[in-house]
């Protein structure tokens, strides 16, 4: 049994919070290129509607407001963006904060950074198998067997996806450009350090 963590079930909606600041909808994430197979095409569609780019692609301020920087598609929190300590929020009702890139999040769980989902072998998921990917989503654990995957990743929703859909997502992720970007490890909340 996993330790109960303050999971967030609607985390992908946070992208909307950033969006609202800029006013106006973000452009639909552009495809990195033609998907390689019908399965990968299906995965591309799923990645779009599951909101993966909301958190795993760094956002930048565009001419019409914040938008995902698709030149860094799904490469996670930028290694070069060193985050200062998160602002203290007191007793609420504010509960969490996010980086302007929408790739770093501070809340009761500590600080989490969105992962590099590109096929880079050393810093992304280039060495994963589809079984690893499916197990990660099903278990809510890093690499399918490690530490808990932290909020706002909505894996408790995604675990309801079929194996077929998850394989399609993984197949698509294998087709996007590999980007070398070493995402920082999570930071535990102060009270547990």
């Amino acid at each position, binding site marked *: 049994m996993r330790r109960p963590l303050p999971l967030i*079930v609607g985390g992908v*909606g946070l992208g909307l919070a950033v969006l609202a600041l800029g006013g106006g909808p973000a452009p639909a994430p552009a495809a990195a290129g033609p998907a390689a197979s019908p399965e990968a095409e299906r995965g591309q569609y799923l990645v779009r509607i599951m909101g993966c780019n909301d958190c795993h692609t760094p956002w930048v301020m565009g001419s019409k407001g914040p938008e995902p920087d698709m030149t860094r598609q799904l490469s996670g929190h930028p290694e070069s963006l060193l985050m200062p300590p998160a602002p203290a929020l007191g007793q609420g009702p504010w509960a969490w904060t996010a980086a302007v890139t929408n790739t770093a999040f501070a809340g*009761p769980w500590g600080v989490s950074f969105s992962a590099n989902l590109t096929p880079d072998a050393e810093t992304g998921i280039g060495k994963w198998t589809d079984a690893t990917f499916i197990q990660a989503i099903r278990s809510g654990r890093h690499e399918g*067997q490690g530490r808990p995957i932290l909020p706002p990743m909505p894996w408790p929703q995604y675990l309801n996806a079929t194996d077929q859909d998850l394989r399609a997502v993984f197949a698509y992720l294998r087709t996007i450009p590999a980007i070398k970007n070493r995402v920082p490890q999570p930071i*535990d909340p102060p009270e547990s350090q």
Partner: protein
Amino acid sequence: MPSKLPLLPCAILCAILGTATRAAAPGPPAGGAAAIASGSGTAIASGGAAAPRLLSATGLYAADGSIDPRNMPFSPQYPLWSDGADKTRWIHLPAGTKIDISAIDAWRFPVGTKLWKEFAWGGRKVETRMIWKTGPDAWVFATYAWSDDQKDAVLAPEAGIPDVIAVAPGKRHSLPSVTDCKACHASSAAIVLGFTALQLSDDRDPLAPHAEPLPPGAATLRSLLAAGRLTPQRADLALRPPRIRTSDPTARAALGYLSANCGGCHNRTGALARLDLDLFHDVGGSATAPEPALATAIDTPGRYRMPGIPPAESRVVAPGAPERSTLLYRMQSRRPSSQMPPLGTAVADREAVDLVRRWIAAMPPAPATPAAIAAGRVPPGSPAPERAGDSPAAPTSR
């Protein structure tokens, strides 16, 4: 995109209250056990055998409630740490069957094999886990929650049961989910982790943390060989029982502990083989080969960053420097993001931490790095060779 907005209030509330609604995993909602295809970690569809609802129906007990004499007790020499639980184990091999040990580090059990492990605290039974081989490459994992009257145990839900008993101030033991069972047991070619050549060796380690006395009639390598339950016959295993390859008693105990508690995932055959951290003792390895842990962990830069330690000075195991050893740091941690093992335990194993600390501290220090010298952590006169691994820009994958 606007349709996502209503999700935010739920997200915030869940974060504050820590009461996330975890959607039910596919599978039976009330009681669950999952079957996997060996080595693949892939759930097989319905049609596979299902675990009975009651432990009493699994074959562990005879009609009078005693352990069925066809089930053999056993006690691994390096027990898995389970927050101080008193554990009792049995195995059932179908009559006339043998375990194929031709792959000495990945035994193949006959179909119908069942293993049980009972967990108790303070004399009260809390859970009993069962692993059941239901097909040539299929296993069922289940755990049963004991009733308050201790008369029987009921199959736990597939998602497990959280916080069933206090094991330390503020710490509670949870019954594992099926995905957690698979996280370890499907990460090794062995599947069964406590019934191996090393664990059943008759050359038992007297310094193994939490070592248990062998129960009467316990299965060991010699007893299994004598009973003809292993094939092919390996007389050498009785003559020269497997043991950790070192003459240092502390190192032997530490490496055995790491093999049993970490090697299920950190090995060279499972899903995490890509990490190049192998803590699993290979009985089939050459007698003169170094222990895999020594070859892959000692003075190896890791990806994990310890608070307060410059990345260039951090090692998985830093010889002579427990304070710079991420392996030890993570063994001591029970913070979700850093604890090792990452599941199955809520309390650090102090005895094992002390053992591993002594083992690391006794190692001759590795040559100092320039960063260590600059930080004043080693005398200026220490050698400072240039090594690719000294650079924080060149970490290995951990």
